């Protein structure tokens, strides 16, 4: 409105145009760059993400690559790692009470920070998430749904904007592939800023002669993001502080550098 009022003079001069640009910038909030972000702390991922990390004030969708329990657990831990690195208490809205708190603790999400809520159906779950986002006192709000239509995710995104609460939505696989999109939960259109697909991958190889499971690895795929390109990586799973890592070979490290073999002991 103000813009219209100022632009009334018949002959626009460069000074006026500059002023207008300045006020437009103020109104629009300087694009994406000013928004608070949560970086992964890994250059390879952060440089692919348009704002340099996960935007704190928006919705992110995560889905497992398949209905297999390992992929589902990987997606859950991926979310838990992000929530663990957020700043404050975390609200986790579930449909079933099958989360195992020690597992979340080992991804960096301490029980003192975590509040669980159980919703009866997807609509209630989304409403609870929205309440949590509007409260502004939470660091992250996590929800697990079977399906969420475009208007639902749009509501969540609107509720998240302006705050510092990151919204994470786990799209679980429906039991039967009756979904539109043949069982792919990310096929439904959504207002989420980024959409991720996580799969479990063979663990880090151990030195020759050592038996055992190395640090878990995931196939992390950034399926869509607003204002950026899709990408995919093979990552090492969350450590006790919720941080991912690049496998040793990709990060130009020697095989004996140790970080990848923490679980070998």
């Amino acid at each position, binding site marked *: 409105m103000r813009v219209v009022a100022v632009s009334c003079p018949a002959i626009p001069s460069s000074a006026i145009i500059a002023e207008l640009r300045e006020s437009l910038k103020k109104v629009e909030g300087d694009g994406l760059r000013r928004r608070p972000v949560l970086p992964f702390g890994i250059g390879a991922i952060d440089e692919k993400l348009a704002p340099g990390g996960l935007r704190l004030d928006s919705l992110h969708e995560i889905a497992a690559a398949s209905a*297999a329990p390992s992929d589902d657990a990987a997606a859950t831990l991926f979310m838990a790692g992000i929530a663990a690195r957020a700043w404050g208490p975390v609200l986790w809205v579930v449909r079933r009470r099958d989360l195992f708190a020690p597992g979340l603790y080992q991804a960096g999400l301490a029980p003192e920070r975590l509040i669980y809520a159980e919703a009866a159906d997807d609509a209630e779950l989304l409403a609870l998430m929205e309440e949590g986002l509007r409260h502004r006192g939470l660091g992250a709000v996590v929800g697990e749904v079977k399906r969420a239509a475009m208007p639902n995710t749009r509501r969540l995104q609107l509720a998240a904007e302006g705050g510092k609460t990151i919204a994470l939505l786990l799209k679980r696989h429906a039991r039967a592939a009756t979904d539109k999109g043949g069982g792919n939960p990310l096929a439904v259109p959504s207002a989420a800023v980024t959409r991720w697909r996580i799969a479990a991958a063979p663990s880090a190889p151990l030195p020759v002669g050592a038996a055992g499971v190395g640090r878990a690895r995931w196939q992390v795929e950034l399926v869509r993001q607003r204002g950026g390109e899709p990408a995919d990586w093979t990552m090492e799973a969350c450590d006790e502080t919720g941080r991912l890592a690049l496998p040793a070979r990709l990060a130009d490290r020697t095989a004996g550098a140790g970080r990848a073999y923490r679980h070998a002991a």
Partner: protein
Amino acid sequence: MLRGGGWRPGARWARVEGADARPRDRRAGRVSEAAPHPVKAMPPDEGRTPVRDPRATPPSASPPWKGGAGGGSADSSPSARLRADPPPTPSLPGRGAVPRITSLQSGNALIIAAACPAARALGLAPGMAVTQARALVPGLDIRPADPEGDRAALLRLAMLAARRWCPVVMPSGDDGLFLDISGTAHLFGGEARMARRIVALLKRHGFTARVAVADTPGAAWALARYAPQICPPGAHPDALAPLPTAALRLEPRARDVLKRLGIETIGQLAAVPRAPLARRFGSTLIARLDQASGRLAEPLDPVIPPEAIGVVQRFAEPIATAEAIAHWLGVLMPRLVTALAEAGLGARVIDLVADRIDGVPQRLRIGLARPTRDGAHLLRLIVRRIEEIAPGYGIDALALHVRRADPLGAEPFAETLEDRPPDLAPLIDTLANRIGISALWRSVPVESDVPERSVAAAPPLDPPPRAAPKSKPDDVRQLDRSRPLHPWDARWPRPVRLLRRPELLDHVLAELPDQPPKRFTWRGMAHRVVRADGPERILGEWWKRGTERHSVRDYFQVEDDAGQRFWLFRRGDGERGETGDLAWFMHGSFG
């Protein structure tokens, strides 16, 4: 058995007493060794679950009050007619056989706080050392005393009396109540009848009581404890005269001195000239004497029963729309908040009652996670649920009732000044009023190796800080300077989702005794294991369930050729059959 040694008293005692009271073996781990395990002796009151019950205080030896000397005469005395009864000496019906005492820590010693009639008959008395009592009476039932609980129970009883019998009620000491029944006795059929009814009521509640009615609190106190009766107006000096001086609520020292002087009864004391008494004992003795006789007033400090807080708005014309209800709630809520602030309370549960003109009240209940009197927050919670009210033909009255309230003092404005974490209570309230407080929880660690038991649910607000166990100054564990280990430490990896109950695996190929499976079938899918960690052996918690005494679970973390990681376990350790049947189960998946 008696080879060489002959008879030793201790040995026989130990055989008789110790056999049934202690578990035969206390071993957590391997049970196959047949060697007997030395059992450390335990004092009986530590081995038992502590019982926290104010009624566990044993009854004192108190004869039940018998019907007094006729009804009260017309009361022309200016002083109040008072009664004192010592009610909180409850009895447990049908438990008379076992002598029971309660123990109280006093300095370094454990002394008897109270003893039941059976225990008193055996010579036990309050103030004795518990060790002595235990030596005197084997098989004594000893419970920890709970003075705070007793006091709270007495206060509750005082509230009950104040609601039911007369407005002025005051607890006296730890074991009595004063009731000022002036002007209320006729409502209950006269003093004698009222006294009988009070004793009957207290008996129904499990208390043994003695009642006396007299003109002054001091006289009623003395008579209730030493000669329960209904004292006619003005007759209390005569009734008090034969009682011992202890009935005057004197200090023990003053009692001893009086005894040495040869003054045994109140009558003798009253006959002594007052000036020398005051010089010798100070003013307290004289004051007590005067309070008993009525020369000195003794005002009572009555308990005030809390009154329910509520506000009502009636309408000349019935209202039926959501907007009208919201408007009137906006009018009612500030009044409720003012009432709460005056009482120094914060609401925990509030009922909204809408009276419909057809006489069917509509009720809404909101609960709050923390006491609050924030009007805007309460209003938001209620207005959100207006749609649940069915107005029918119209509502002619709206009322807000506080069902539960907790003390809430003044609150500082510090939140705006310093940077502190935001308050989650409003969010919890909002969520709890939508899905119920039972659907909101927080998990707390439990020191248990069994995965299903290592997590407990706790209320969502105010997590208790993990208190480090207090250790004595000479505890050797203090030498360990390492960081205390969290029960969920990452050295024992746990899956992020646990199957509700472990699922049986088929076609498992594994080497005994401690090799992970080479392949298995779960939910109809065959998996070939390429990597594995384990076993992590978890033993049954024999102290919780007897059936777990021998049970063993060997957990393995395995990875199949597709990169999926699972948490499996085998029932049994693979060597001894009693530890399990060697069946394999799936318990969760790692990411």
